[in-house]
């Protein structure tokens, strides 16, 4: 390392302090080698137990390893927002108020939170999710925006803007009364962006987390529910893959099909190692824009 070269955290990609025990911007350890697979996935190392992250005049401390807790020490005018079901404990002095979201009916139908809770200091507010996995801290630079799969959001600082959009990935099975629309990665995607100043976004990622940079035009197929977040420059659509089959079972090829999410660069994508496979029970009668492959 040369003294003239500023240190950039390889995980949050922000200027950081190489002498600190962990990145003060995202909590990632600074003293570990990059763990990169031959295919190019970089493992996001778990944030070290009791690591501290500074934002504004406040501090975030990550506690625990299996199901880590995000413990915010809020000061001054700093505030955070989160879905109420991730609240673990709070000081009585901290203030909790409602923050309503638009699109209530659609969000309710999708099982998404209708109301966020706004937490203000002074005082501590601690959050955790219900899965063994990682807390991923994403510092957002002014103007930076990122897409996150629904239900993975843990918390954000008050200056992070939150919107959501309908999922562009769906398919329909059955007809008539049996018609059913499937959203393999959920009905909505969350979009977060830093408004007037840098902000902090926290996600909970079940299992382990892996990050990869796609080159322009580079494509990748991933399980739809494994996608954690992506840069908005990464495009995505449905991809259907049918294995070669013959003989007695060839007419039931749909039973063995794979429903993929096809990602195309450029940009950063992150996946989690815990996911659910889409149901394969019925033939697809219509779908969103999709590519397909039959073997």
């Amino acid at each position: 390392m040369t003294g003239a070269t500023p240190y950039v955290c390889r995980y949050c990609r922000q200027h950081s302090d190489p002498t600190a025990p962990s990145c003060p911007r995202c909590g990632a350890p600074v003293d570990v080698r990059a763990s990169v697979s031959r295919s190019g996935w970089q493992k996001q190392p778990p944030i070290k137990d009791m690591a501290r992250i500074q934002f504004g005049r406040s501090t975030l401390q990550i506690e625990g390893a299996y199901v880590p807790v995000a413990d915010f020490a809020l000061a001054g005018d700093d505030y955070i927002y989160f879905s109420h079901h991730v609240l673990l404990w709070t000081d009585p002095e901290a203030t909790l108020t409602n923050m309503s979201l638009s699109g209530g009916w659609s969000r309710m139908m999708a099982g998404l939170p209708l109301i966020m809770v706004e937490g203000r200091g002074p005082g501590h507010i601690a959050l955790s999710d219900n899965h063994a996995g990682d807390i991923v801290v994403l510092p957002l630079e002014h103007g930076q925006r990122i897409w996150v799969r629904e239900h993975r959001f843990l918390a954000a600082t008050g200056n992070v803007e939150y919107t959501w959009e309908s999922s562009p990935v769906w398919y329909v099975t059955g007809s008539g009364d049996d018609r059913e629309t499937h959203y393999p990665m959920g009905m909505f995607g969350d979009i977060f962006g830093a408004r007037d100043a840098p902000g902090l976004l926290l996600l909970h990622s079940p299992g382990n987390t892996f990050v990869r940079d796609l080159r322009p035009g580079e494509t990748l197929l991933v399980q739809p529910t494994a996608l954690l977040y992506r840069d908005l420059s990464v495009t995505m659509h449905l991809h259907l893959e049918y294995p070669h089959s013959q003989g007695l079972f060839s007419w039931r090829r749909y039973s063995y099909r794979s429903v993929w999410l096809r990602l195309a660069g450029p940009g950063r994508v992150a996946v989690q190692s815990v996911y659910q496979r889409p149901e394969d029970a019925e033939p697809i009668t219509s779908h969103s824009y999709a590519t397909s492959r039959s073997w």
Partner: protein
Amino acid sequence: MDRIECQWCRGQNPPGSVSCLTCGAPLDERNRVSDSGWREAPRLRDMTEFRFFNSTCQVEGELVPVAEINLGQGDTVFFEHHVMLWKDEHTPIAALNTGGGFKRVLGGMPFVVTVAQGPGRIAFSRDSPGELVVLPLHPGMELDVREHAFLLASGNIDYSFVRIKGLANVLHGGGGMFMDRFVTGGQPGMLLLHGYGNVFERTLRPGERILVEPGGYLYKDSTVQMQAVQQKLRTGRLRHGMYLAEMTGPGRVGIQSMYVHHHSE
């Protein structure tokens, strides 16, 4: 040379010990305490052993740890029957009625616990990633534990239940209608819990308060008062009020980071 005092259970250990003979906590690691004052329960190393009475407990695994008990002659442990992982064929077990059967059934609590008697081996685990919390109880202690969190207890511990007072608790608190209460008489006892996710403990000063999601509550000294308090928040499609458990010291409070959230969406 000075003996080593365990920072978790205060047990005394001979010089050179790397884990506590009484609770298995590592003695060669620093305590992990957050800025807000929560102390992490010690992470028991794989294959750690500790003793109670004539018996030993060996902790096996880390993600969903197993407590393997080698029961000494005459020693007994009791537990909910579905946490048994395996046992020696010849280790005797018996059912023990805890009393309050109908009320406990309504509260979703076991009203029959199973007792195993030594000599023999028997092993226990619950069904989700988490931590074994070893709580050696000194004589005259009372500890309240959330339902279905206890893994096993030594036979000399008195086991009863307490009803959480207040209608709001029953309907909205989420901690269930009952909590297990473990009381020691003139002798010490051994209590093992399984906390989902990570487990943290904090000692509240007299009158000190903290608000905890009821599903995150794991255990408390009986001196800690617990009541449901409604927050000025509306949640979910039916606009439920949100309730948190207000804990008031003095005494210890234990929480778990993976929890079941009740009555909200």
